[in-house]
């Protein structure tokens, strides 16, 4: 599946995983530091993912 990352905006391909929490673990991201968004909807960690999904991992930490 396609994963959109921010700061700066870029895309990575992640294969062979089927839940939000496994994607976060693979990318070494703490679940509470991002929102996971698919088609404008928030996904919980337990959500099932399909190989052709596009998901955005949007960081929620901000500085200023």
């Amino acid at each position: 599946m396609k994963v959109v990352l921010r700061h700066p905006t870029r895309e990575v391909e992640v294969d062979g995983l089927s839940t939000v929490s496994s994607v976060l673990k693979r990318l070494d991201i703490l679940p509470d530091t991002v929102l996971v968004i698919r088609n404008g909807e928030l996904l919980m960690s337990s959500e099932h993912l399909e190989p052709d999904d596009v998901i955005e991992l949007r960081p929620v930490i901000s500085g200023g």
Partner: protein
Amino acid sequence: MKCRVCKGKAAIKIRRHNAAFCPEHFTEHAIRQVEKAIKDFDMIKPGDRLLLGVSGGKDSLALWDILTKLGYGVDGVYLELGIGGVDDHAYSDVSRRYCETFASNRGLKLEIVDLSTRYGFTIPEAATQTKRVPCSVCGLSKRYILNQAALDGKYDALVMGHNLDDEAATLMGNVLQWNTEYIGRQHPVLSASKDGLIRKVKPLIRLAERETAAYCVLNGIDYEVEECPMVEGNTGIKMKEWLNELEDRAPGAKHRFLFGYLERVSDRFATEQPELTICQSCGQPTTGATCAFCRLEIRMKS
């Protein structure tokens, strides 16, 4: 997991409350948290005229939306800091547009203060000239200009969008250095002072930043997602990362750290406040003869 309220499909889990919510009941939960913070800390009095500092980010826009839903009339002020960006993404311009769109869609009043036209310099210029970390000149400028805007507009209080993570990170930074003077000044309500400091309140203190971001996504509020390109050197971010590691292992740690301090410890630090005098150049309160912002302004003119 199911929504705690309606048992429908949950969209977000909040580990420190050990609860999950559907979009509708999450929104309700967030509004109640703000309402509770306002009440617990006696932040707003009936009839207060409120000015909210808006940045175009998730926190201030979520807060503007929530306060409006709670029935408060709140005007906004946006500071144009002149921060550019990477890859044609002009950070300040884009951020301003989010604020303008938000305000015009809801018929809310938004004032824009342009640092460059009003004071003759931008944040990048000030950082270069003074060789200081951008966030440090930016922070002092924002504090000064927001206070001035609230005084000029005869508002009763300045409302800020600091959330639980912001406040816990600030406290952590100050505790690690035992900056007792700053620790003593940290409170979600800072009273007005007779010499011209406006009352400052922080109603988002019970919401984590993930929750204000989720509030925006679930309520169709577009905000600036990209990080400020000048954030390098900001110590708050490091503190937030450490606190997030801690929170991951012990959900609720951030809340307990901050609220334990506010409810049980803050009194012990409250006395160490410096005497304020009036800045000889602008009349705003300061601890020296000339305030930090006026010194910066003089430096930028030379």
